[in-house]
Structure formats: C-alpha cells, structure tokens
C-alpha cells in the first residue's frame, strides 16, 4: 500500500470507528510504522483544512469532529446535549483525579476539604473516571483514575496538556 492509499484507508478508519483510534491501532491495521501513520494523519489534517471537519487528538487517539466554529449551525439540528454541564464539585474532583491519579476518595476529600462521594459517583456515572485498583493498606480503599472518555470530552491529547502553573507551590 502506498502512502496515498494508506491516507484514504486511515481517513476511513478514523471516520468509521465508534471510538477514537490510537496510532498503534491504525499502524497495525494498515501495516505501517507508527511514525508513518502520524505523518499520514498530518496529511489528512491538511486535506481537511478547507472543509468542515478536523482530526482531533484525544488522549493520544484520533477522532473526526466538526470544527468548533460550526457549532451554532449544528446546534440547530437539535442534537441532544450529551454532556450536561458538570457541577463545580465534580469539576474540582475531576481535576484532582486527573493530576493525582491513582487517588483515593479520602485523598480527594483532604484536598477539597469536603465530602466528595456524590461528585465521585456522578463522575463514575458519566464514565469520566473509573476504578483503577485498590490501595495497599487498611481498608484497601478504591483508587480512581480518568478514562479515555475524559480525554474525549475535554478535547485533551494527554495529561501533559493539563496546566502546570502553580504546581510547584505545593508539590
């Protein structure tokens, strides 16, 4: 398969996939090096530039979405709001989990200074966080981490994209 063919196949795969696809997954299907896949994705980005679509990298996985400036038009389709707004409590809890994962409920509550059960449950329901294991020690408390969906919902490429300002003040 030459590069132009691979570009069409990769474009089709990213479009048709029900979930964002990683470079590795794409590389396996088209039987090319991950680096070749990455440069092909860049070519698709350029190819999409004049149109309505863009390739978004969420949590290291690619996804086709519409350009943000089209949202006023697309909202006219009356697509149900899939992501109801998060409460401040949930967003704070999520921020702690995103930076500190894996983290227990007690650790979250120490940082926030308040009980956070309902925020955690709401994030679990939305599948933005998940249980990633148990901490050794008394009670073996559940450890939480963020999910792939978290990256997709927040349009983040990786946890490296979380802002670092001020982190040295307390870490």
């Amino acid at each position, binding site marked *: 398969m030459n590069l132009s063919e691979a570009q069409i196949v990769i474009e089709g795969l990213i479009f048709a996939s*029900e979930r964002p696809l990683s470079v590795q997954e794409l590389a396996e299907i088209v039987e090319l090096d991950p680096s070749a896949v990455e440069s092909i994705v860049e070519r698709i980005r350029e190819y999409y530039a004049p149109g309505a679509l*863009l390739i978004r990298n969420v949590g290291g996985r690619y996804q086709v979405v519409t350009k943000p400036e089209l949202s006023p038009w697309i909202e006219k389709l009356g697509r149900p709001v899939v992501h109801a707004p*998060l409460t401040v409590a949930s*967003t704070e809890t999520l921020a702690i989990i*995103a930076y500190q994962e894996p983290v227990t409920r007690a650790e979250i509550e120490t*940082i926030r*200074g*308040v009980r956070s059960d309902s925020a955690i449950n709401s994030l679990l329901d939305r599948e933005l966080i998940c249980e990633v294991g148990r901490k050794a020690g008394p009670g073996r408390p559940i450890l939480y981490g963020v999910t792939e969906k978290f990256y997709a919902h927040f*349009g983040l490429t990786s946890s490296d994209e979380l802002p670092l300002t*001020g982190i040295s003040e307390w870490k």
Partner: protein
Amino acid sequence: MGYVIELEVYQGPFDLLLDLIAQNEVDIWDIPIASITQQYLDYLYSLQEKDLAITGEFLVMAATLIRIKSRLLLPQETAEDEDDEELEDPRTQLVEQLLRYKFFKEAAVFLDQRYQEASKCFTRGQRAASFDLKPVFTAPMGDLTLLELGELYHQLRAELEKEEPVHRITSQISLQERLALVRLQLVGQPRATFSDLIRDHSPREIIVTFLAILELVHMGEIALIQRKALGEIHIEPLELEVEVRA
C-alpha cells in the same frame, strides 16, 4: 466590623477562606487570622440566620481557625516548650492546604473551559452502519421480504380491527364469505385488479378482502402480479390441475 459577605455558595471551607483572603487582599502567607476568623464565623452565622444547613466541614474549620488564633496569641516562650512541630507558624499547614486546593480549583476552571470548547466539536452523528453500499445483508433481517413485512402489517391491523367490540350490527364480513365472493368475482375472468375487488369497500371490508386474497394465494388458487412499485395489483386465477395431480 461592618463587613458584609455575600451569601455565595462555597464548595467548602477552603473555598470560603480563599475568597475571604482574596476579598481582604492580604498575603496568603501572612493571613490576619483574627479578622479572617471573625469574617468566617460571620458567614456561618449568616447561613444560620437564613436557616441554611452548615456542613460539618465548615464547623471543623471554624475550630481550626480558633485554635490557630489562640496559639498565635500565646507567649513565644510557652510555645518553645512545646514539640518541634509547634515551633512552626501554626498557619503554615493551613496555607499549604489552601494553596493546594487553590491549584485544583484553578485546574477545574481550565477543565471547564476545555469542556465547553470540546463540546463545540461534534462527532459523527450517526453510527457508521452504512459504509457498505452493496445491498447484501443477510443479517439483520434474515430472509424477511418486503412483501412479508407488508402482509404482516396488514394482518396485524386486520386483527386489531377484528378485536374491536362491534356495537353496530352492520354487515359483519367473514373471511369465508369474502373468500367466496372473491372466487365468484374471478370466475370466467382472465384476471382482475385489486382496486376492482375493493371498489366501494369500507376499510374493514378492504382488510378482509385483502386477507381473502392472501388466503387464496396461500391456497394456490390465484397469483398476484404487481409490475411496478405502487402499481396496480393484478389477480390471476391459477389452473388448479397441478394442485389436483399433487
């Protein structure tokens, strides 16, 4: 003091304290603990006045603030007698907690912005079920044909009509009668059209006629021919010799 605190909703005692520090424009590393404690307590009283519930965390923090305040008031020499950790500014631990919370509070604002930005990008609206244009679908409908589907629908409707309690004593058309009638109409005719057979029929009669026709097809007495979609349905009587021989 005359200091009015708006009854904002705070996420917790840290959130409230950070807001008080910001409103007082004081250095977080040098919190005027007496006045901040007073404002903190004033806020709790105002909640109480409004019959709003004060959660335990707010009360624990109130106790912590009062303890820090009293410790700061103690003479230095008394403090030196205490454990090493007490030598530290009693505010330090609180400030560290506040800064840590403040960091995540800001991170939450960042996340909220990203959430709103990301929600402007729409993913493909439909599931990619239809990338294959070739009409070779064994699943998901098996070998169900369109005609079967149509017949099924009309049978269901017909059953529904039959089930309706009939209060009127208008002509009750039985399938057997209608069968006989259709046979009669076809006698000596090379063919008839469906619209001929249902001319001047009520919807209920049409159903029964339709069922009668289906029944006749089933029994091999007639064939139905429709040359094009939506076109007239022609009914042709079949030779029954084949049936007899079999």
